[in-house]
């Protein structure tokens, strides 16, 4: 526990502190940038972009070694991975536009094939440079061990640029994400904006690749945005909430990992984010599952109650057991389905409400008012008491039916 507290306040060693800050910044950038692909309903393009970096990493390695370097320079890897990931993006776009294949097929194809190219390159490199270690594993899972201060700078600068660009371009990107046809009709270059969105994802991906690895950067691009969705309906708030969740996950994850032996950083970060996501899914006040469950139960009860009372008013037998149980619990019917006095009174009240609504619709053709009648809203909620008195005056005493 002490170790955790130390790590939390960046007192657990230079490397741990660096990783925590770097992960926090990266998480923030990933969360914010991942918001718009999520809204655009192409969250998994992040996966394709991430997998398409592998050939670039391999090529960059080969080139750097060829020029006499050691092949592990972060900037070199970033450059290489960015190039092939960008090509992958363009291929996805080309396939979706030029052929009858849908976008998901294009994404999956690029993902698998580019990764395959990367694997082939990797085996070539392993054969060439006998005994080189930094192979697939660190690419996939990241390696925090050798993190340098300049790596943190790269993350900080790159991440900040990504976040700032996301914020500045939030209006066009929201428009395109919500309704690209409308955006086009307003004169926006939808293609450019889409490429910008994906370009931001690409930047965050290549920056974070070394630290958390391929699979996990994809998690940071998707999970915080999904979690943020449960807390707000406005895209601008989503950017900051997703960023916050991402940043918190990054920081907490790194801290947790530093405070326990042999806990790999990347997976812990993702699992922290996943926990926040599950919490949001279940407990968010408006859109969370529990809140929706309560609302639905209440709604269902209201519907059945009203239908039950209407049946009573029309002297029809109620056949659904749920309705009978509901009404019996309120003391409105006896167990055999015969209405009690209280039940009869309620039924008459509901029936009156129905008739008042009929009259209201006749005289108030304003769809806004009568549109509020969804079968459940009592008339007292929409009209004033003197308006209702006017309806009653027209209704008069109980009348026989209209010809229908």
């Amino acid at each position, binding site marked *: 526990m002490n170790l955790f507290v130390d790590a939390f306040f960046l007192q657990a060693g230079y490397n741990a502190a660096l990783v925590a800050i770097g992960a926090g910044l990266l998480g923030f950038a990933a969360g914010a940038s991942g918001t718009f692909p999520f809204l655009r309903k192409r969250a998994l393009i992040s996966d394709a972009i991430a997998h398409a970096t592998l050939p670039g990493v391999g090529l960059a390695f080969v080139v750097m070694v060829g020029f006499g370097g050691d092949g592990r320079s972060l900037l070199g890897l970033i450059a290489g991975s960015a190039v092939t990931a960008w090509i992958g993006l363009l291929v996805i776009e080309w396939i979706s536009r030029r052929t009858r294949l849908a976008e998901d097929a294009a994404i999956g194809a690029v993902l698998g094939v580019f990764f395959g190219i990367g694997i082939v390159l990797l085996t070539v490199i392993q054969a060439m440079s006998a005994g080189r270690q930094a192979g697939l594993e660190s690419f996939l899972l990241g390696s925090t061990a050798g993190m340098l201060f300049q790596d943190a700078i790269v993350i900080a600068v790159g991440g900040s640029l990504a976040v700032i660009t996301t914020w500045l371009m939030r209006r066009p990107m929201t428009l395109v994400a919500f309704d690209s046809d409308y955006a086009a009709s307003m004169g926006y270059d939808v293609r450019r904006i889409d490429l910008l969105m994906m370009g931001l994802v690409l930047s965050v991906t290549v920056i974070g690749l070394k630290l958390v690895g391929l699979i996990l950067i994809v998690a940071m691009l998707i999970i915080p945005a999904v979690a943020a969705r449960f807390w707000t309906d406005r895209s601008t708030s989503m950017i900051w909430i997703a960023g916050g969740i991402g940043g918190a996950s990054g920081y907490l994850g790194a801290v947790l990992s530093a405070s326990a032996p042999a806990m790999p950083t990347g997976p812990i970060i993702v699992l922290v984010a996943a926990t926040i996501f599950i919490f949001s899914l279940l407990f968010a006040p408006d859109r969370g599952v529990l809140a929706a469950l309560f*609302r639905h139960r209440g709604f269902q009860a209201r*519907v059945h109650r009203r239908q039950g009372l209407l049946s009573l*008013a029309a002297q*029809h037998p109620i056949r659904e057991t749920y309705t009978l149980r509901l009404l019996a619990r309120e003391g409105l019917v006896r167990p055999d389905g015969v209405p009690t006095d209280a039940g009869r009174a309620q039924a008459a009240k509901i029936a009156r409400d129905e*008739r008042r609504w009929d009259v209201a619709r006749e005289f108030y053709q304003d*769809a806004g008012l009568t549109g509020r009648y*969804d079968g*459940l809203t009592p008339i007292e909620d929409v009209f004033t008491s003197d308006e209702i008195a006017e309806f009653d005056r027209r209704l008069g005493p109980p009348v026989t039916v209209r010809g*229908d």
Partner: protein
Amino acid sequence: MSRTTQPEIASELGHAVGPAHAPRDAALALQGLTVSYSEKPAVFSVDATFNAGGMSAIVGPNGAGKSTLLKAALGIIPRLSGEVRVFGKLLRNARAHIAYVPQSASVDWDFPTTVLDVVQMGLYRKVGLLGRLSGQAQSQANECLDRVGMADFAHRQIGQLSGGQQQRVFLARALAQDADLFLLDEPFAGVDAATERAIIGVLKLLKNEGKTVIAVHHDLATVRDYFDHVLLLNVRRIAEGPVETAFTTENLQATYGGRLAATHLDELAVADGGR
């Protein structure tokens, strides 16, 4: 053509809620049907009886739940409450009697299949999962294509069809089912005049053969010409009955709220004698 066989019930209610038991000759009987998406009812407590041999329209403004009603009646989407009976039977026992023509926009027309293939899908209930499509079945499919005027298109890929042609193919598919009750979702939406004539021609022939046709219909101007029975829907059942008595200005106003100009209504609706 009375909708109910029971006397109307005098009560606090201004209109009858519906018969307690569905009449035995009803092709489709809905009772208390409620469907909701999240917390808003899309269709609330709808009672409706469609007699056998009738040609009925379901009309209402956008968002009134017309397609939802149809899909819930077919069991394609779940209902919150209410009962559905087809020729007096439960839905799952009556599937052989029903043919459904969905909106043509609901399908990916780039799917790799030919026109004839689509029509043969209608023969499914006869051949089942594993049965062979006999030569007789093939010719039946061709005959259905002929009835909608698409016999020459049998081997064309469906993506090459126009909107009207797509609608005709869907109708041919329904014809191949040899059903007694036809449920169509906006069959005339987005089709050309020739197709509209062709479709209504086929539907009238079906009615003459004693089949029942129920269609969600978007064009109020043609209700009186095409249909003899109408259900006016706006989340709730506003009115239902023979076109002469139910398709009135008053009912249309109640259904559409303020969305129809008064003069327009007078053209569309049946003249209200004595009002």
